[in-house]
């Protein structure tokens, strides 16, 4: 059963130059207990999806259409108060730039207690014990609860954020580039921590990153995004073994691999398109090595091509498989 189902989500940002179509017709679902990774370059709409699910878009964000079904309820039709009760309790978000995600003037422990008490009737004592438990869970010393964020290191802050996100036992955890600001060693620790907790609590996870190797470690399926669209979606292993979309293929060959034969890294030529005026047809066609005439004219349909493998590309057809 899928816990989250995003159907044809369309989102844009209103700017003085026009509408930026940040998310344009994205559909995917996440099963209970599954970890889905969303990969794409900066500005491809990954974070906008996360913020849309939380309904925390900035004031210039506009919803154009689609549905976000969470446990069969459409989040986009909920009122603000219903949505507030969802946030932090049933859906948690760990977002980018987490180093400033804690308020510098309040004690870290208090900031977690505050989140618990926003959703549950709980005395201070009991909440304190819960936070202590959470601290141990994420590998923090409970003695640090009374300290302020500036007394934490980057990795400790991120652990505290994870504790905060888990404080009300959410069903869905969205991690949007949770390790971007951290060094590689801490990055690894944090990812292991998230994975461990995901298994332990049977959490449903959406992991957003520009780093496909990180996603490969964390997630059972991967969605590849390009310029506001989902271009390929497949189980992790299938995606790495036989990537079908030219963009996915380009993305994978632009990373060095430690194992396997030595080869040149081949970056994808060109730049991410401007979403104010996206290219016609397939948005990837100006950079695509296999572009045909139809690619510039007609938008490829996002369709199922194999069991659990979806793609939007004119160049891949069922007969080629």
């Amino acid at each position, binding site marked *: 059963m899928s816990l989250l189902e995003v159907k044809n989500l369309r989102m844009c940002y209103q700017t003085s130059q026009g509408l930026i179509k940040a998310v344009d017709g994205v559909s995917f679902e996440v099963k209970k207990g599954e970890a889905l990774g969303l990969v794409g370059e900066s500005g491809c709409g990954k974070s906008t999806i996360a913020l849309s699910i*939380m309904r*925390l878009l900035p*004031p210039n964000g506009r919803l154009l259409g689609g549905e976000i079904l969470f446990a069969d309820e459409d989040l986009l039709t909920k009122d603000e108060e219903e949505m*507030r*009760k*969802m*946030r*932090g*309790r049933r859906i*948690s*978000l760990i*977002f980018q*730039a*987490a180093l*400033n*995600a*804690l*308020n*510098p*003037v*309040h004690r870290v422990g208090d900031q977690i207690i*505050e*989140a618990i008490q*926003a*959703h549950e009737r709980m005395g201070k004592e009991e909440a304190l014990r819960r936070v202590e438990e959470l601290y141990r869970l994420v590998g923090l010393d409970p003695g640090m609860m009374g300290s*302020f964020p*500036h007394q934490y290191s980057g990795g400790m802050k991120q652990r505290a*954020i994870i504790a*905060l996100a888990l404080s009300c036992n959410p069903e869905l955890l969205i991690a949007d580039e949770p390790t971007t600001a951290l060094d590689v060693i801490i990055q690894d620790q944090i990812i292991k921590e998230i994975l461990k907790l995901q298994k332990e609590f049977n959490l449903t996870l959406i992991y957003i990153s520009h780093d496909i190797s990180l996603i490969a470690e964390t997630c059972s399926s991967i969605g590849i995004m390009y310029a506001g669209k989902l271009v390929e979606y497949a189980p992790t292993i299938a995606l790495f073994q036989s990537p079908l979309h030219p963009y996915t293929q380009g993305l994978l060959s632009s990373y060095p691999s430690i194992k396997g034969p030595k080869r040149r890294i081949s970056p994808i030529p060109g730049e991410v398109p401007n979403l104010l005026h996206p290219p016609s047809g397939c948005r990837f066609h100006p950079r695509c090595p296999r572009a045909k005439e139809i690619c510039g004219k007609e938008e490829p349909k996002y369709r199922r091509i194999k069991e659990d493998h979806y793609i939007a590309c004119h160049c891949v057809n069922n007969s080629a498989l």
Partner: protein
Amino acid sequence: MNLGRFILNRLGQIVITLFIITTFLFLLFRMMPGDPTSMILDPKMPPEAKELIRKEFGLDKPLMVQYLYYLKNTLTGNFGKSFYYPETVLEIVKRKLPPTILLFTTAVILSYLIGLPLGKTIAWRRGSRLEMGATVFGLFFYTVFIPWFGLIAIWVFSYRLGWFPIGGMLTPEVWAADVGLFPKIWDVLYHLILPLSVLTLLFFAGSMLLMRNSMLETLREDYILTARAKGLPERVIKNRHAARNAMLPVVTALTLSLAFSLNGGVLTETIFSWPGLGKALVEAVLNHDYPLAQAAFLLLAILVLFANLLADILYAYLDPRIKY
């Protein structure tokens, strides 16, 4: 604790700064063109009488000796005798300071009490009609010229409507009569309302706009998004997370405003015939009344220095990242 040492350190710095300022003030007034005696002396006076008066104020002594006298008077706290009034400087300040505090400091406190919540609210409701209205309203009073607005207020409310007195701080008859305390307080309040309202209107925009800007900045911070993602109620996000952090720069402005308020304002005092320190200060400079002018400026310097110290201490209390 370290805070104690920090304060002690700063007090030491304040003493040194004050010494430099006192010296500077002494020289500044003596470098001004003109002579104090020309203001109090009749030109037809015989030169011997002039000399006598110069002698009485110590103006015949060399500059260095005058300076030492001045330092002695400043350190003992009586600031010498006014050249112009038949009082010591201390007596003048004692007489003028309470009305100044009553009008100006109250106005500053009131304007912050109004400006801070209003600034917080309009930043939170950015783009609303309330924000537009309050900002335009605030900017109008922020830029309006005090004497003009004061005179209009007096003309409308005192002269045409007759609700308030034309000026002054009290009715001498009431204070001369044996009527008990309450009518006297009422009398002062009656005189206070108009100038206080005018000043508060003129002041509140500053604090409102400052709070608004500071609040808008904090609202862009990541921890506000965290607070929303936690599912906190709007009110808690606004007050505990946004406004609490936005207060920091406003605190500095508040302490400085309070310090400056104790010096009054010459234009306001003139328009409303308010017996404050501001007018006395300007007159002292014009009259070459060195002791009074020096004392008044020194008072301002002391207040600003201590207001800064107070702001620093408050900062340490408000922002845990700051440690001394």
